């Protein structure tokens, strides 16, 4: 069953703004298994879209499909440009970036080096540059570290952790680092996969705050999340997936009142 979103909830402005990221009829098959079918949604500039659903509903598969990491059908449009055929590695420079469900770092680099590594497009020096212009490279590297430190600070990763290895820092900070690495030097759309998994209390509040701040800076965010507190408080719209299909779509209030969603989460009454 698909519950059609009540369009009156969207403001007039929101309706006329073209979406920054739109997916149409995404489908993924693994052999005989249809892991994802007929999934369509869009995010408008400066909005947060939540994707929820029970375990195994196809949420992470949906991300892999959007970012071209799996063979899929359907269409992906980023900022008015059809990027369906663009390889995964070329999406970042077009402004589409994502995090992964598990904390994804470069384990053997320090936190700061992790950040420097994803800022190479803006702050790196070419190989010949490093050989022949060592002093210029040295200055650039110092600038890169400063930029990385600033970016980490913005993402709530405190300076005292910058010289540690990612596995040594507190879990809440690891989640922030994941977001910082995914965001890199900047993005139009950032896709996060369960950023709040395993978080609580203080860490959760910091995360809500961060997501809000990023949105206020004009970033569009897609969030897969299980933690309803978080999703209900930050998302502008929510898509519910169940068994690889769209179950519902709407504002947080609509989703909370939706019987089909309650069933999917708490089990169906028979």
């Amino acid at each position, binding site marked *: 069953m698909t519950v059609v979103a009540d369009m009156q909830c969207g403001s007039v402005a929101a309706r006329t703004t073209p979406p920054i990221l739109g997916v149409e009829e995404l489908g993924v098959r693994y052999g005989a298994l249809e892991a994802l079918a007929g999934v369509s949604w869009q995010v408008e500039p400066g909005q947060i879209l939540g994707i929820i659903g029970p375990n*195994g509903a196809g949420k992470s598969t949906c991300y892999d499909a959007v970012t071209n990491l799996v063979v899929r059908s359907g269409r992906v449009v980023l900022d008015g440009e059809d990027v369906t055929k663009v390889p995964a590695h070329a999406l970042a420079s077009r402004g589409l970036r994502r995090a992964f469900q598990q904390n994804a770092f470069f384990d053997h680099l320090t936190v700061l080096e992790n950040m420097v590594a994803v800022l190479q497009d803006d702050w790196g020096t070419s190989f010949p540059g490093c050989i022949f212009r060592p002093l210029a490279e040295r200055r650039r590297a110092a600038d890169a570290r400063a930029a990385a430190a600033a970016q980490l600070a913005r993402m709530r990763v405190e300076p005292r952790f910058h010289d540690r290895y990612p596995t040594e820092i507190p*879990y809440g900070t690891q989640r922030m680092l994941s977001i910082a690495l995914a965001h890199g030097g900047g993005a139009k759309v950032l896709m996060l996969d369960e950023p709040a998994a395993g978080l609580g209390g203080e860490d959760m509040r910091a995360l809500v705050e961060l997501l809000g701040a990023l949105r206020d800076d004009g970033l569009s965010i897609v969030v897969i999340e299980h933690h*309803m507190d978080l999703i209900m408080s930050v998302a502008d719209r929510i898509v519910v997936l169940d068994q690889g299909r769209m179950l519902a779509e709407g504002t947080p209030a609509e989703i909370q009142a939706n019987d089909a969603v309650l069933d999917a*989460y*708490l089990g169906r009454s028979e």
Partner: protein
Amino acid sequence: MSARVLEIADLTVRYGGNRVLAVDGLSLGAGEVVGVVGANGAGKSTLVNATLGWSRGKPVVSGRVLLDGKDVSALPTPRRVAEGLLLIPEGKLIFGTMTVEENLAEGATDPGPDRRAYSAEDVYSLFPRLKERGGHLGSQLSGGERQMLGIGRALRLAPKALLLDEPSIGLAPKLVSTVLHTVRELCRDGLSVLLVEQNVKAAIAVVDRMILLERGRIVLEGTAGEMRDNPRIAEAYLGTQQA
């Protein structure tokens, strides 16, 4: 309460520098079904995996696991299995390159008089569907059949305590109920079950007691009746605004 088949004490699990699980005490009586619920990342799978000393990652586990009063925490996973502690993991739970019959071929060696060793025939009478599929490969089975085969495979090894991790994932509602009620039936024969489940409604229908995990800790524990109407259970899944 009946005799304790499984006792877990001071079980902690760390990944890198981070503690992801800290369970002070949890016990399972003979013939009892205890449900474990909680949000994603709350540590449900970590709890059951650590009980077996098993993982697909590299955690550091400490704590005590007692099976029928015997401390098994120093034993490697296969030895715990031989003692009658069985886990059906989430996700991949059967051997896909082997037939149903082969998946059920490995039985317990000398389980002793106090453990019931199910024969392949016993499993087939429990799940007639599996008998029809006997010659098929595990990879050809549907989600429900895999779940049945996973349970059957565990029963062949004469479990004292069976830990089930999210058996309802990807199953149709009717199948969920079939699988869980079969599990309930098994407990009449004295089997004890720890059931990790996300489908709270389905789980609450078959468990005796239920615990709620949040951030690696037990935050709530009670009988099925007490938990059914507890708002915190719904909260854990749907958020505080949901009354």
